[in-house]
């Protein structure tokens, strides 16, 4: 019986405690919202500084423009991946972008440019870099740059350039340095035909398919020719590999199949 009397008393105490706690929570919530509003209104929450590093060919302005970032935009709303993909998809010269965010308000775009494997020369003698994906970067004519890549003088079939660029990228840099000019001269039976002029005086006839593998033979091929005391000439490096000195070519002209 005494039990029943005791229970209501207990409840009263509970209610008092609960109202106190509710008040506290409400107050906290209020201040929190206030703080949030203040934060988003202030300049701390906004992009204050955008910097670009690692761009050589592409100008920082271009990168920022394509990133769709601008000053005073909400810092927290900047999506790293979105920024990176929008830059990479808009500028073919760029392979990847790393977006680094530092609070408050600092964004750094670390650009990695695509390796450029060759230059394409047009008939006015202007040079354009070619990326390892076979894209010709026409908006960046290289006038003052050091010409440190093979020069493509003639390219007939545009669709074959990506495949070739990929092969060229795979090629050992030491051999790549030996190549002076590249000419794509397809014939009816051989749409892949390439003629290369090498720095050491040899003319190489090869094909786009397995170009890197075939060219890998070049140094040892030349080495063994020199050991045999052969002079300069034409080296065929396709599935078939043979050598013909220049003189012979002159005397019995078109003997080759």
């Amino acid at each position, binding site marked *: 019986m005494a039990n029943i009397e005791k229970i209501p008393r207990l409840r009263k105490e509970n209610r008092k405690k609960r109202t106190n706690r509710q008040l506290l929570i409400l107050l906290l919530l209020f201040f929190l919202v206030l703080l949030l509003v203040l934060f988003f209104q202030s300049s701390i929450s906004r992009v204050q500084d955008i910097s670009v590093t690692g761009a050589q060919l592409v100008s920082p302005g271009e990168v920022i423009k394509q990133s769709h970032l601008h000053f005073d935009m909400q810092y927290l709303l900047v999506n790293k991946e979105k920024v990176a993909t929008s830059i990479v998809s808009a500028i073919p010269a760029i392979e990847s972008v790393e977006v680094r965010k530092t609070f408050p308000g600092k964004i750094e775009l670390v650009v990695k440019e695509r390796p450029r494997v060759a230059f394409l020369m047009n008939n006015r003698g202007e040079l354009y870099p070619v990326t390892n994906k076979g894209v010709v970067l026409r908006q960046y004519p290289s006038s003052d740059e050091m010409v440190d890549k093979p020069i493509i003088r*003639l390219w007939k079939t545009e669709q074959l350039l990506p495949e070739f660029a990929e092969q060229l990228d795979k090629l050992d840099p030491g051999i790549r340095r030996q190549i002076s*000019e590249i000419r794509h001269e397809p014939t009816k039976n051989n749409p892949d035909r390439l003629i290369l002029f090498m720095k050491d*005086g040899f003319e190489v006839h090869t094909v786009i398919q397995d170009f890197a593998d075939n060219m890998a033979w070049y140094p040892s091929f030349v080495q063994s020719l020199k050991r045999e005391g052969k002079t300069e000439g034409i080296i065929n490096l396709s599935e078939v590999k043979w050598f013909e000195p220049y003189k012979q070519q002159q005397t019995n002209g078109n003997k080759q199949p």
Partner: protein
Amino acid sequence: MKDIRKKINLRTFFIGGLFTLSFFALIFRTFWIQYIDSPELLVKAKDTWERSSALNPKRGEIVDRNGQVLAYQGKAYTVIARLKPYPNDKKNTNYVSNPEETASKLAPILDMPKEKILQRLMRKDVDQVEIRPGGWKVPKETADKVKELNLPGIGLYEESRRYYPYGTFASHVIGYTNLDGEAKMGLERQMDEQLRGEKGSLKFRKDRLGNQLPGGVESYKPAKDGNKVVLTLNHQIQSYVEDALNQADAKYKMKSVSVVVADPNTGQILAMGSRPSFNPNAPKDIQNFTNPVVSAEFEPGSTFKIVTLAAAIEEKEFNANEYYKSGTYKIKGSPPVRDHNRGIGWGWITFKEGVKRSSNVAFVILGYDRLKKDRLFSYLQKFGFGGKTGIELPHEARGSFDPNRKYYPRDIASITFGQGVTVTAIQQVAAVGAIANGGKLMKPYIVKEIRDPKTNEVIQEFKPQMVRRVVSEDTAKQVRDLLDAVVNEKHGTGQPFALPGYHVAGKTGTAQVARNGHYVRGKYINSFIGFAPKDKPRLLVYVMVEEPQIDTPSAGGKIIAAPIFKSVMERSLQYLKLSPDETDGHTTEIMGDESTVMPDLIGKNVSQAKQILGQAGLRAEILGNGKTIVRQYPSAKAELTKGSAVYILTVKDGTQMPNLTGKTLREVMELASLLDIQVTGINGEGYVITQSIQPGAKVKKGDKLAVTLAPKSTTGAAQPEGEKAKKHKEESGEQNIKTAN
């Protein structure tokens, strides 16, 4: 009161604790399985999956000597159709509801008449059918097309089948394995035991309903994949043979044409092909199920004279400068032997002349009159006629020669020049190979190695085998010289087979076709067997044309066989000339110390720089006459090939122009950027022949340089103007290349 409360509390605590504890245990166990045990469990699981698929062995590959795959086992798909609705799942509409439409859509893809497909789709007695034969084991491309149609009730079932990536390519040699997996012809059949592998087996316990019990595996034997067979064939040379055969086949009509390419020094067959042929991927209308090179017996004609000649020389019965009367040779009681110009002959000529003109009379005198039957026959036997060569190809024939048979004198006389006796092509390849290699009869073979499919280790290797020495080196050399005269001297019958630049030796053969003991008019077998280079033969090529249907069938050798022989021989020799597998031995070694790194030279003085470059194996081109280096190309740490030229600049301005003649465009450009001058005019391609700023002239920043280049392959000869203009036009065509923006 208090006691009761205490009790309740205690119980609550106890039960709550128990629940909590068991929850923790559960979480802990889950965690354990997911993270700690998982790798082990995954391995176990994979084991079970693999076991079920490893029971059927994979048939071994057939590859050429360089590892080029000629036959392999790959994925294939069978098109299946669900014909009726599912009885316990009425809502599932994945069955053929409209056979008419389904059939008409499938017909073009599966290359099967629509009616035939429809007939299958309309079957009432079964729930599901395979659409055979058009949809049986089709390649992935076809399967993808079927998938794209997205027809209800049409599905694909993955299987495996044999693929021959080159199609009609040494088809009679490789043979084929049909869709049922039965080896049907050629090496597929001969080497079936090696290729097939062994089936695995899996025994397990089952419950009453036939379900496998967990952990109930009783015995398990994994399948053993078939071995890889490496052939002596060379894919490249074989493709030359196929090319030549295709051209001949397209141009002329004949019963058959075959080509064999062998290495006479080892007996290895490098290529073998014939027409008519078939595509082993879809073997249809195969006209001849045996390989004519090893199974067809025919009269060899004059190519056989090589053997008679070798025997006569070895037995010292031949004197090249001795005279004899050509035309006819009389044998008692039978018609005389006549020379091929209707028995007129060429009067009194030397034996050498007789060999060159392929005079039958000369060989009858040598073989029948001087060697006589016993000696002649013993040589024929030594050369391997009348017996199998033992090559690993099925259905090898022996030919009709049998020394124990009774031959009439006239028959023996005929045999000396290759008539009245039949041989196989492979016998002749082996016999003439013995002449080419200096007198050793080598066993022809086509399987080089058997390798393990997984580790690629050699299980069995086949080495060149000498059967016996048949003639001395000296005799072989004399025969080769005479055969050289046949091809390369005036009056030689083999002149159409000569190759400029190579020393070909060989012999033509023209035999009439015999049927029922009579020669058939106008039907000939033309052949040529030759090797090159004459004194160190690397290749032996045999061409046989059977019953050509041309205006002068007896000239089939000249018209059909010669172009085949020449194209195969020339292209193969060129291929072997500097084939990489020869230089293979020392390539890696050279490659090792071939590359070097560009040192940093800026700020160093010239003599120091020269020394550093010398050590690195680089050539220095010094520009200007200053003392210290101000610029260099390429920049430090660039990888270079030894012996390449690098540029170092010693003064900032006013350098002398170097001589550019013989340099490449890239070098010119590199130099130009080093000297800060502009290259404005570039004509031609290749190597510099003229330059606008003369060598020695001082250049300053911003000067303009023009160069003219020409390839060395036309050695300095300037291109004709017209062609140049054309080239420029072509170059402007390149401008439509995709512009990136």
